[in-house]
């Protein structure tokens, strides 16, 4: 399987995630779309590692996973704090800094 196919799939998944971030308004779903984008980038890293025949890309993908896990923990905690204060998970309702 050529690495080009993997990169093409990664591009498609990344675009789907980006559109999801733009379209959805539930903060949790936006988070999931960000995770999808991170996964797509990981796939591209793995594909390029395969193309070059070394493992550096896989190590970077591993680090991306670690950072994504930390990001999810903090992000969901922020989401819970906002939900506790405002009883809503919609990004439209977090507008106190707007004006």
């Amino acid at each position, binding site marked *: 399987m050529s690495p080009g196919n993997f*990169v093409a*799939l990664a591009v498609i998944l990344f675009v*789907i995630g980006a559109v999801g971030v733009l379209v959805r308004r539930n903060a949790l779903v936006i988070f999931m779309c960000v995770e999808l984008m991170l996964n797509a980038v990981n796939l591209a890293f793995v594909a390029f590692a*395969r193309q*070059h025949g070394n493992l550096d890309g896989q190590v970077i993908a591993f680090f991306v996973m670690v950072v994504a896990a930390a990001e999810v923990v903090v992000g969901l905690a922020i989401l*819970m704090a906002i939900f506790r204060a405002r009883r809503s998970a919609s990004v439209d309702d977090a507008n106190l800094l707007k004006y």
Partner: protein
Amino acid sequence: MIAGHLLAAGQVTSTAASVTFWVLAVISVAAGLGMVLARRAVHCAVLLAVVMLSLAILYAVAGAPFLAFVQIIVYTGAVLMLFLFVLMIVGVSTADSLRETIPGQRLAAGVAGIALLVLLSLIVGHAAIGPAAPAGPRYGVGNLRGLATLIFTKYVFPFEITAALLITAALGAMVLAHRERTTPKPTQRDLSRQRMAGGHPSPLPGPGVYARHNAVDFPALLPDGSPSELSVSPIIVARERDLGTGPAAALPAGGDAGNGTAGHQEQAGSAPEEARP
């Protein structure tokens, strides 16, 4: 046995690899689209799990068996479960409203998405992505050893930094999840005073009628034969009234009797959706 298959996946035949790739590509793109389009957050989470599992198999096909397992354990196991837990707290039943708050947002997002797709396709199309390197010992059973060597030699400093990041994230989550108590904790004396003053010092009657039905939504009968509204949780009464079925729906309306109304507040997981201006 599956692990052995995955470990050997670096050397699978090209036909099997391409069949796996195309099947999983279709599945993951469809699940990704479904995730963007599904209205309920739970459906989004399940579809995201499908995407992540298919990506894990794709990693194995692409010669990264270690990453495949990390993907399943960390992403599908830990991250998605965390998402589902938060979803349970924030409200499972909340569905995104279809009303656009910013006019033309969806159209603009679609145009931006297509533009991004064209841009990235042009970049990838112009890049010279060659064929895969010949399968060496790094992509079979030696994958784990190769990764370990790299992580603990060339990338040892980023790896140490990762530890600091994880500790910081854990501390941050604890700080953010901490809630200050605004009122002093009621002691046992306070609680018993409250109960004596509340006019109902004894425990509330349990639900169900002995020898007939003991479901929690089945009100107990008082000596005069009338159903006791105190015997059924007000949450269940409200739910069955909404649904219009069940034995608790027949209880007289407005008969909460003042107990357990806090339960209503806790139950209001779907309230913010209606409370939105």
